[in-house]
């Protein structure tokens, strides 16, 4: 069977020549699904949308996609990590975790920001520079239901009045103010009290189930061999709390206990709510949800300097963040 020739339109000689010249000076984009590289790939800043608040103010929401499965990136605010128009520092991270990280931070929409204005976050990593362009375009309007849906808490998009009324958890950091100090190699203990309204329910909503404590090897093997769906973005819901490095050389920081990954590690049995078989702490057997809501974490730094740690309490649908600045002196 033959077919007709495909003729690009517009096709006038002058216009076609102009387009060709433009195409020739453009980068040669790969334009294909990437292999599972561990390092060396680009990082894409992501514009997640804009939202409004009860007081009438509005915020832009940003995240990122680090294409690398292992490489974390430390990119200080400056020529490789900046906002435009100035100021360059709008509270963005300088330490980037692997893979997809949604709704990482928000920036207030400046006064007088109009429909035609835009706000740009640019990050250069591994030799590639990309920007996220924030506008108030209607398509990017985000509310809590959108956030829950986008992170995968609603599966393919299932909700109820109760779930839509979900409120984010609350964090109360115990101890001194949000500025801490310690020394290299000396453990810093952080205690965060987390409360939540219990929505969305971990059990019976997204069907995460833990194996019984006395499950046999055969039963665990069969569980592991069962293929899962994942046709849409899907996240196991259930309250959890995670510390990560937000600014500073994050590879020099160790947490005890190991923290639940706040990034989308979608590999089987990864310690991430987006991983198949991941079970939230309250459904683990025995339950790992602190009965008093107080999450204890010890942090050890291997390099001196100033760090910003982010504690995120996440009920699976919505989240709250708490930041702590830690000044680490040399040993």
């Amino acid at each position, binding site marked *: 069977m033959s077919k007709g020739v495909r003729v*690009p*339109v517009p*096709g006038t000689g002058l216009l076609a020549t102009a387009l060709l010249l433009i195409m020739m000076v453009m980068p040669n984009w790969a334009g294909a699904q990437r292999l599972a590289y561990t390092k060396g790939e680009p990082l894409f800043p992501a514009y997640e949308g804009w939202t409004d608040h009860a007081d009438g103010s509005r915020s832009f929401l940003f995240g990122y996609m680090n294409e690398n499965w292992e490489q974390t990136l430390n990119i200080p605010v400056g020529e490789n990590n900046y906002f435009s128009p100035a100021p360059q520092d709008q509270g963005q991270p300088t330490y980037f975790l692997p893979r997809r990280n949604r709704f990482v931070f928000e920036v207030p929409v400046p006064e007088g920001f109009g429909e035609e204005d835009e706000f740009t976050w640019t990050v250069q990593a591994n030799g590639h520079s990309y920007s996220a362009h924030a506008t108030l375009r209607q398509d990017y309007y985000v509310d809590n239901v959108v956030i829950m849906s986008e992170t995968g808490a609603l599966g393919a998009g299932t909700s109820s009045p109760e779930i839509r009324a979900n409120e984010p958890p609350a964090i109360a950091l115990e101890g001194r103010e949000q500025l801490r100090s310690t020394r290299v190699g000396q453990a810093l203990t952080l205690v965060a009290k987390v409360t939540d309204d219990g929505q969305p329910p971990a059990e019976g909503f997204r069907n995460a189930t833990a194996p019984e404590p006395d499950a046999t090897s055969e039963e665990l093997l069969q569980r592991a061999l069962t293929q899962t769906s994942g046709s849409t973005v899907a996240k196991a819901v259930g309250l959890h709390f995670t510390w990560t490095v937000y600014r500073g050389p994050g590879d020099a920081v160790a947490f005890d206990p190991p923290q639940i990954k706040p990034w989308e590690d979608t590999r089987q049995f990864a310690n991430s709510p987006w991983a198949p078989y991941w079970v939230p702490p309250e459904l683990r057997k025995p339950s790992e949800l602190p009965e008093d809501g107080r999450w204890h974490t010890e942090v050890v730094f291997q390099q001196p300097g100033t760090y910003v740690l982010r504690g995120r309490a996440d009920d699976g649908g919505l989240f709250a963040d708490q930041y702590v600045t830690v000044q680490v002196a040399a040993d």
Partner: protein
Amino acid sequence: MSKHRIIQGKQVPRHSLVACIVFITGALLAAPPLLAQSTTPPTGPELHLFAAEDFGIDPADVTFTRDIAPILQRSCVRCHREGGGGPMALTTYEQTRPWAPVIKYKTAIRDRMGTMPPWYVEKDIGIQHYKQDPSLSDEELAKIQAWADNGAPQGDPSLMPELQEVADEGWTIQPDLVVRSEDIFMEGGAPDWWGEIDSIPIPLEQDRYVRSVEIREVNDVPAAGTGRQTVGGRWIVHHLIYRTQVPGETREEATGWPVHEVGRNPDLFSPESGRLLKAGSEIRSESAHLHSSGIDTTAHLEFAFEFFPPDYEPKYEEARVSLGDGLNISIEPNADNQELHGYRVLQDHVKIIAYEPHLHAPGDRMCLEAIWDRQIETLSCVGYDHNWVRTYTFAENHEPLLPKGTIVHITGFMDNTRSNPNIPDPRNWQGSGNRSVTNMFIDLGIMLKLSDEEFVEEMAKRREVLDLDVNDHVIGCPLCMAKIPRFGESGDMPAEETTAAVNEGERSGTVNAVAAGGRE
């Protein structure tokens, strides 16, 4: 050797080119200002152009009444008629003539976003036999192009075919039962929303198996659109995952139905696998995805069911095969032809009834492949437009028959450039998500599960119906030519030949036991 030679270097006639430029210029002028800041120049779709002479047709002899009206009546006027939902009627010469250049342009796009009719099967790859296929043949495109290029002459009025009444109130299927939802209101400025709709009682007094189901959204969006430039502005219900459930039944006892999506065509179930609609059941959904049209919109959904005869019993059950990847989607800014891949190993022999790409705004094309042993075969490639989500139901005796162990593979092709009018801002990276402006990548098609005996029976039937000889090959049936006789029958392949084939395969280490002898 086909008699249809490829037209090398054929140019778009001048007046058609003007129409195209007007069309594209209009689209660009309507685009929001920020798009003008994108670094990627927009390009128009590629056109499929044919010379009438190659079909033995004198271009000057192509007329509306004799040549064009029958094409329009078959493939266009169901919508493009007074009250039919299309933005203009194309039922008379006077109505149609002003649109001749646009008709030429839209039909020549053929299998990509923006074409009409909205059916995107690529005609040079994969299976070519589908139910309710409204697409135009090469010869029909040649006629339209010759007619438009030649001034769109009317021809002899006496040759004008009588306009057929659109039966069944415009339904594509022949409904036995129609129910409607309550009104759904969506504010013009609202964010996307997911949740429940009110249950819809179904006035059915006895259980019936459903042959086909069709859903349409009826709303108060103006026919000319809302002016909103992004995806799906004509409709507010972007998907509906629903079931029918008798009050008191559990979710597991309910009947699930194919997902309704924006701009969808009907689901046609296999004669061997109708869906059960139980007496006294009601439509329930907690997963309606609403997307603002850009203006305050009131809509409702109408559900039409066409039944099998009352004594019908299904033969096969459905295979639950989840094919797609909704998690690791990464779409670069300002780039087209970006591939996404999804795989699944079949746990059963299957018969694929329908192929249904579900992408979102950047979706441009999706292909379905079957990988059996060493061979990779493309079953279907289709274009995609998230304003018109299509399901492609294979015609009887052309459904893929795949052995268990086959790897089914989908490849999505994403266009995140200014050329894609569904994209809000192609300068931005895009990932996965449920919003219309973030991304899904799924095949929502229908597969039936076959036992060994049923699989062999289906292949034997295929050989008979298609009258296959030893040099034939059936796309989508990698084992059809293994000539495995029906269980309990003696085959036409001599036993010694079968043994020799197996031995040869064992020596080379490549022949699968199923391929050689129907065993694993």
